[in-house]
C-alpha cells in the first residue's frame, strides 16, 4: 500500500462523527485557553489539557490533541494581531505587520489571512510529510551541533534585516536578549551566571514574564500616551471588510508558498521549531518581496509568510518525531509523551508496526487545521469586535491578566517584580527607539545557540573551521551572509531610502481612495484616536467641528 492510499485510509478512519466532534472541541478549547497569558504557549495548552485527551480512545485522543494544538496556535496569532501581545514565541513576528494592519483597520483581513495561509501551508506540510518523511528523516539525522549552531546564528543575524532604520539599536536589543538568556545556572558547568545570589534566578528569566512585561504592559503604557478612553482601533463595518480580499490573496501567493517550504524544512530539523521557522520565513519574504517597503508598516505578506511557516512546521516537526522518536519542539515533546502514554513507540519502524495509529495521526493534523478554519474564520468578526471594548476597560484587564500570567508561572512574587522590571525596560526601549522584538528572538534562541556553539567548539578543539568544513553548516552560514549582504545593499541602493513626505502623502491618497471605495460598500466607523483633543476655546470659537465619533464616557 503506498503512502497516498495509507493517508486516505487514515483520513477515513479519522473522519468519524465522534472524531470530528472531538477535534472541534479541541480547536475551541485550544483557542480559548491559548488566549490566556500564562497558558498561551501551545506546549502549555497541550500539557494542561492532555489529561482530557487520555480519557478518550488513542486515535480520538490524538486527533483532539491536534485540534488543541492548532487552536492554541491560532490564539497566539489572534493576540499578536489584535493587541500586539505574543502569547507564544512563533507569533512574535506577527506583531511587526499584523498589529500594524489592525491599527489601519484591517484586523479582520489580517486574522483571516493568518487562518487561510495556515490552512494552505498545513495542507502542504501534511502532503510533504506523507511522501518525504523517510528522505527528510535522513537529512534531519545529519544535523549535528555545528549545523544547529549555524541555523541559530542564521536566525540571529537575520535581525539586521528587520531592525528598522537603526541596525545598531537592533543589535543592542539582540545583545541584551542574548545576555538575558545567559542568566541562571550554566548547564555545562553548573556555575551560576548573573543570579546575584538569588535562588529565583537559578532557572533563568521566564519567557512569559519577559513577554508580558516587554510587550503587553509596555504596549499599554505606550497606548496610554495617545488613547483617550476611546476604542483602541478602527473597526470597519461589513463582512467584506473583515476578511482578506482577492487582492490580498493574490499578493500573498508567493509568501504562502515560500513560508510553507521554509516552515517544513526548518521544522524537520530537531530543535528547529516554529519560532525560527516563522522568523526566517518573514525575513526571506521581506527580502524577496516587491513591496518590501511595506514590511513593518502593515504588509499582508508579513502575516502570510510567517503564519504559513508556523503551520507547515508542524508537518516537518512530525518527521523526526514519528520516524526517529525525536521531538523537534516543546509541542512535539508533549505529543511524544502522549504517544507513549497511548502505548505507541515512535521510531523508524512505527509506520510498519502501528499504521492504524500513525496515518490517522497524520490525517488529524490536517483535520485540526480544517476544523480551525471552519470554526474560527467565521468567528473573526467576533474577535475583531473585542476591539470595540473601550480602552479604559481593556487596559486594566490586560494589567490584571499580566499579573496573574506572571504569577502563575511559578507562584512566586519574584516573577511579579520581574514583570515590573521588564515593563519598565519595554517602555524605555519603545521611547528610545530600540525595537523589542530582536531582544525576544535572541532570548529564545540564545540558550540553544550557545549550547550548539560550545558543543561544536568542543568537537573541533576550539577551531571555528568546523562551521565551514561541514557542508550543511557552510551552506546555512553562506545563506546568512547572502541575506545580510542583500539587506545592506537594498538599504543603500537608490530608491531604498525611507519614504519622503511626498511618498507618504501619495500613500495617504491611495489609502483615502481605498477608504472611499470602502465607504461605497459599507460604512467605516472612524475613530480618530490620534487627534489631539481640541481646546474648549477652539470649540467655542467654532474653529473645530465635532469629530465623527464622540469619546466614550
Amino acid at each position, binding site marked *: 500500500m503506498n503512502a497516498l492510499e495509507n493517508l486516505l485510509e487514515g483520513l477515513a478512519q479519522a473522519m468519524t462523527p465522534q472524531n470530528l466532534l472531538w477535534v472541534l472541541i479541541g480547536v475551541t478549547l485550544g483557542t480559548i485557553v491559548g488566549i*490566556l497569558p500564562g497558558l498561551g504557549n501551545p506546549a502549555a495548552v497541550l500539557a494542561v489539557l492532555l489529561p482530557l485527551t487520555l480519557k478518550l480512545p488513542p486515535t480520538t485522543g490524538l486527533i483532539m490533541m491536534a485540534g488543541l494544538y492548532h487552536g492554541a496556535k491560532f490564539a497566539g496569532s489572534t493576540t499578536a494581531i489584535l493587541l500586539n501581545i505574543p502569547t507564544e514565541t512563533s507569533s512574535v513576528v506577527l506583531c511587526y505587520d499584523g498589529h500594524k494592519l489592525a491599527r489601519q483597520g484591517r484586523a479582520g483581513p489580517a486574522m483571516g489571512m493568518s487562518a487561510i495561509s495556515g490552512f494552505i501551508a498545513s495542507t502542504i506540510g501534511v502532503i510533504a510529510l506523507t511522501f518525504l518523511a523517510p528522505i527528510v528523516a535522513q537529512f534531519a539525522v545529519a544535523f549535528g551541533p555545528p549545523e544547529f549552531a549555524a541555523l541559530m546564528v542564521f536566525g540571529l543575524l537575520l535581525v539586521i534585516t528587520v531592525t528598522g532604520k537603526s541596525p*545598531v539599536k537592533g543589535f543592542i536589543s539582540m545583545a541584551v536578549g542574548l545576555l538575558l538568556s545567559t542568566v541562571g545556572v550554566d548547564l555545562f558547568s553548573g*556555575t551560576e551566571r548573573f543570579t546575584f545570589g538569588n535562588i529565583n534566578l537559578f532557572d533563568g528569566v521566564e519567557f512569559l514574564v519577559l513577554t508580558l512585561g516587554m510587550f503587553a504592559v509596555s504596549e499599554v503604557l505606550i497606548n496610554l500616551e495617545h488613547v483617550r478612553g476611546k476604542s483602541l482601533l478602527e473597526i470597519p463595518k461589513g463582512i467584506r471588510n473583515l476578511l482578506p480580499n482577492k487582492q490580498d490573496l493574490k499578493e500573498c501567493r508567493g509568501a504562502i508558498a515560500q513560508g510553507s517550504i521554509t516552515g517544513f524544512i526548518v521544522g524537520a530539523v530537531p530543535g528547529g521549531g516554529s519560532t525560527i521557522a516563522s522568523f526566517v520565513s518573514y525575513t526571506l519574504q521581506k527580502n524577496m518581496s516587491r513591496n518590501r517597503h511595506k514590511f513593518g508598516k502593515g504588509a499582508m505578506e508579513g502575516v502570510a509568510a510567517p503564519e504559513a511557516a508556523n503551520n507547515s512546521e508542524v508537518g516537518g516537526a512530525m518527521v523526526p518525531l514519528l520516524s526517529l522518536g525525536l521531538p523537534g519542539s516543546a509541542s512535539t515533546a508533549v505529543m511524544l509523551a502522549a504517544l507513549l502514554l497511548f502505548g505507541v513507540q515512535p521510531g523508524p519502524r512505527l509506520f510498519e508496526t502501528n499504521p492504524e495509529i500513525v496515518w490517522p495521526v497524520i490525517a488529524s493534523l490536517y483535520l485540526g487545521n480544517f476544523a480551525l478554519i471552519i470554526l474560527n474564520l467565521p468567528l473573526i468578526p467576533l474577535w475583531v469586535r473585542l476591539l470595540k471594548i473601550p480602552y479604559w476597560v481593556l487596559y486594566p484587564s490586560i494589567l490584571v491578566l499580566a499579573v496573574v500570567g506572571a504569577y502563575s508561572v511559578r507562584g512566586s512574587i519574584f516573577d511579579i517584580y520581574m514583570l515590573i522590571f521588564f515593563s519598565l525596560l519595554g517602555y524605555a526601549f519603545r521611547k528610545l527607539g530600540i525595537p523589542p522584538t530582536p531582544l525576544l528572538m535572541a532570548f529564545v534562541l540564545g540558550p540553544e545557540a550557545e549550547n550548539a556553539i560550545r558543543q561544536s567548539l568542543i568537537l573541533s578543539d576550539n577551531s571555528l573551521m568546523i562551521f565551514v568544513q561541514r557542508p550543511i553548516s557552510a551552506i546555512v552560514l553562506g545563506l546568512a551572509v547572502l541575506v545580510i549582504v542583500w539587506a545592506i545593499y537594498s538599504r543603500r541602493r537608490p530608491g531604498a531610502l525611507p519614504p519622503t513626505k511626498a511618498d507618504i502623502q501619495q500613500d495617504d491618497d491611495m489609502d483615502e481612495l481605498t477608504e472611499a471605495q470602502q465607504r461605497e460598500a459599507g460604512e467605516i466607523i472612524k475613530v480618530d484616536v490620534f487627534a489631539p483633543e481640541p481646546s474648549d476655546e477652539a470649540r467655542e470659537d467654532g474653529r473645530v467641528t465635532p469629530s465623527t465619533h464622540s469619546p466614550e464616557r
Partner: protein
Amino acid sequence: MRRLDLATGLVTAAVGAFALYDASDLAMFGEGHVPSAGFFPKILAGLLIFLGLLLAAMSLWASAPIDDDDDDVETSRSGKIKAATVLVVYAVIAPLVELIGYIPAMILLVLVVLYGIERRRDFRSAIVAVVMPLATYYVFAHLFAIPLPNGPLLPA
C-alpha cells in the same frame, strides 16, 4: 533625539561593563580548553560595550538623528504623565498580591486606575474593578487549578 541616543549609547556601554565585571569570576575556558561558563557572557558584554560606544559616537557625528520611531504621533505631556503614573501604581500595587491576596490587590489596582487616574468615578468602573479580578481568579484558580494567594482577608 541625538542627546537621547548619546545617553542610550553610554548607558548601554555601562550595562555591558557591569556585565563584564560580574562575569569576571567566570572562566572563559575550562578543563581541556573547552568553552566554559564565561565564554558567552564575556563576549556578549564586550559586544554591548562596543555597540553602546558605537551608538554614542554615531549620535555625535551623525548629521541627522537616528530615529527609529515609526509612529508619527506626537505624544502630549499629559499622556506621558498618565503612562508614568500607571506604571508607578502598577509597581506599587501588583506586589501586594502575596500580602493582601490576589483578589483584593487586583480590585485595588483597577479601582486606583479607573477612579484615580482615568477619573471615571461611576458604577461601571466599580463593576469592572470587581468583575475582572473575580473572573480571572475563577478561571485560573478553579478551572486550571493554579494556586493564587487568598491573603488574610479571604478564606483559604
